[in-house]
């Protein structure tokens, strides 16, 4: 009797814990409510199977517990039953997969009206870059990086002169405007994630990766590094402030452009600018744009 009861308790205990758990999704603050919906759907489909299997085991261990002299029933196969179970399982799987792929299609299709900004990661800090008035980010490569040009922007690329540089871990975004986050790293893998936004992507040195989302709540959010990047990984923090359009523009206008920061740096001596770099870096590869 003990074993079936324990199985019941484990099964029911799991379900009860699920419903009373004080730990649950951090409230969403982006457009990705569909992701949460897909998860809820997955919970229902898999939850039914989990409870079903455990209850059936509890029943079997009770009903067919050992009795001296009894013999088990001999029925090595039951093709009909096996096929039915296979078909039902396939339907359950399709039920979860279809909406999942449908939402994924949204996830990988960036809306045309989306704005752009760049997250630049290095051990262990975040900086950011917005395109200037031309709406285009200048090209960038590690070989251009130096003290005067920490973002590694190509000084000869005119698109880059008006780029707005945020040499700080805090970035602002306007509410309700879809934004494509371009992700760049100068050293190792990183991952830019704000749990309330639900969307993340690894940052891979040597390429530019991206994801998109629409912030839907005004407020201040923690951004964390979500891909192990060395001994300071857990301390690599940033802040995303979602503003009204007006506040956002006011904030953006206060930030320096690349040209301005170069001019400022030229006020210093030029002794750092002639560092020799050994060879050209790899071309941007992969999935950007």
């Amino acid at each position, binding site marked *: 009797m003990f*074993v079936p009861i324990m*199985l019941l308790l484990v099964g029911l205990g*799991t379900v009860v814990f699920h419903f009373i*758990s004080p*730990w649950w999704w*951090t409230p969403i603050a982006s457009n*990705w409510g569909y*992701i949460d919906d897909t*998860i809820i759907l*997955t919970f229902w489909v*898999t939850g039914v*199977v989990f409870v079903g*299997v*455990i209850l*059936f*085991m509890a029943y*079997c*261990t009770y009903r*067919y*517990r050992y009795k001296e002299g009894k013999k*088990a029933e*001999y029925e090595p*196969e039951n093709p009909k039953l096996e096929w039915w*179970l296979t078909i039902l*399982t396939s339907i359950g799987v399709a039920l979860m997969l279809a909406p*999942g792929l449908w*939402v994924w299609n949204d*996830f*990988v299709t960036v809306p045309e009206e989306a704005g752009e900004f760049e997250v630049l990661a290095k*051990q262990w800090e975040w900086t950011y870059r917005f395109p200037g008035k031309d709406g285009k980010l200048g090209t960038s490569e*590690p*070989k251009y990086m130096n*003290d005067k040009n920490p973002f590694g922007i190509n000084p000869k690329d005119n698109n880059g002169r008006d780029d707005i540089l945020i040499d700080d871990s805090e970035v602002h975004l306007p509410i309700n405007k879809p934004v494509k986050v371009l*992700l760049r790293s100068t*050293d*190792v893998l990183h991952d830019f*994630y704000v*749990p309330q936004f639900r*969307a*993340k*992507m690894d*940052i891979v*040195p*040597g*390429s530019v*990766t991206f994801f998109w989302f629409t912030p839907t709540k005004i407020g*201040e959010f*923690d951004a964390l590094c*979500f891909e192990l*990047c*060395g*001994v300071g*990984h*857990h301390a690599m923090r940033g802040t995303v402030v979602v503003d009204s359009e007006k506040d956002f523009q006011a904030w953006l206008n206060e930030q320096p452009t690349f040209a301005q920061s170069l001019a400022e740096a030229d006020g210093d001596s030029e002794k750092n600018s002639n560092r020799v*770099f*050994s060879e050209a*870096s*790899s071309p941007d590869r*992969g*999935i950007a744009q």
Partner: protein
Amino acid sequence: MAYVAPAEAEQIPAAEVEEVELYHAKSWVTKYVFSQDAKVIAIQYSTTAIAIGLVGLVLSWLMRLQLGFPEVFDFIEPSDYYQFITVHGMIMVIYLLTALFLGGFGNYLIPLMVGARDMVFPYVNMLSYWIYLGAVLLLITSFFVPGGATGAGWTLYPPQAILSGTPGSEGGIILMLVSLALFIIGFTMGGLNYVVTVLQARTRGMTLMRLPLTIWGIFTATVLALLAFPALFVGAVMMTFDKLLGTSFFMPAIVEMGEYLDYGGGSPLLFQHLFWFFGHPEVYIVALPAFGIVSDLISVHSRRHIFGYRMMVWAIVGIGALSFFVWAHHMYVSGMNPWFGFFFATTTLIIAVPTAIKVYNWTLTLWKGNIQFTLPMLFALAFIVTFVNGGITGLFLGNVVVDVPLSDTMFVVAHFHMVMGVAPILVVFGGIYHWYPLITGRMLHEGMGQFHFWVTFIGAYTIFLPLHYLGFLGVPRRYFEMGETNFIPESAQDLNAFVTVVALIVGVAQVVFFINLFWSLRNGKQAGSNPWKACSLEWRTAQVPPGHGNFDDLPVVYRWAYDYGVPGVDEDFIPQDLPPAQVSTGKGG
């Protein structure tokens, strides 16, 4: 349905080749140290794997102490913590589970269960163990070199694995990579043995479709390992070159801490593809032997044939094949082309179907059985619970868009510990309780076993179930400490402290298991020749424990390994090698 003897007309084919004389040890050293007997090698493999597994267990305690009580244990620095998680993961997945299931259970059970006297290449089999031991020692050594063991995470992703921001990027990573390469070389020697023995050394009458599922599981897992490990081997060699020779297989142009490095043009994602092309089949390299063993435990101890044997075999083979087409589900947010997500999510969810069939058939084996709550059966039941739980969360992570918020959170940690940590370890325990009487001739102590079982099962489940929910909150994995955030409530820290306490309790409870292992060697109840009344051949040896050469005359097999409860037969089981004429059907005579 009454008992029908296999048709008298069925001819058991004559042996195709003459028996080859076995190697006979001439001294104590060649018998017990440099042994070529698969059973001794199995014990060597198991002992080494469990010993290194205990190191992995202690590392997990250190980790849990830091997570449960941050800032209390000053001696744990961030670099230590990252070394602990890395070596813990590596040990548990490769040096413990892979080695124990294939090198341990495989070596012991394959020759016995297929009716062979030994593995087909005993000398290579011996080398396999000693190379494995070298790999283990090298792994341990890496803690003591300058800079310590690598802290790159068990996935060893470049560029960080070989750059200075990661602990152990001087000597530790090199020793790790060389140790892995050695492991793979050693494994290949053993693996070829397992495959060839199953294919070539089965006794007369032992057709493939009469093999116990344990053998099907181990056999398929070995084939997977032989195909998957080379990808890791290549990755390890290339990364060693990147580190030592300055090649750039995985290294793009990098500015590290303001310094432009001498690398360029390589691809960090290439390593991830190589790693997971190995890494995903690796999950099944651990899981398939567990599937096989647990099928046999459930069948023997519910006194009923396994339900749907053919479907079970094809499910094992199908899962094995599919496991080579799902690897990039570990990389949905890696920055690879996101369109891959459609393909890999589909293949990943398809693999759920044969896996679910296995679960159904285990429970349908219980159904209408005559279930004995022996210790192996308890562990088997606990395996089903934890495996279903862990398998279900796999459907979350496999469904690409659901993975986006959950990847790299504690949800992932909880998922893979439940499905390929707790579940297979429960099968290991079940297997040990089941075959200990064969290996030693004595039963393990029931009371100690019951205590060990309940603390381990309930404890491990209590540890990992709530961790999923920290993942929903957005608590990341591989964090030395959470620090300040505005989205994680205080209660999450309380939960972490609770989990740490339970983990320590479950860990300490394992002491009872080890006491039992040693105590029962001398004091256990005499097991006799077939204490569980099992049908398979390992219980049909000349002596218990089986001696050198296993059998007097090689057995001849007349039926599958699951003739339990056959109607019209007196006994409730018919051993595989019992000639049809000797099956008594006369109701008491």
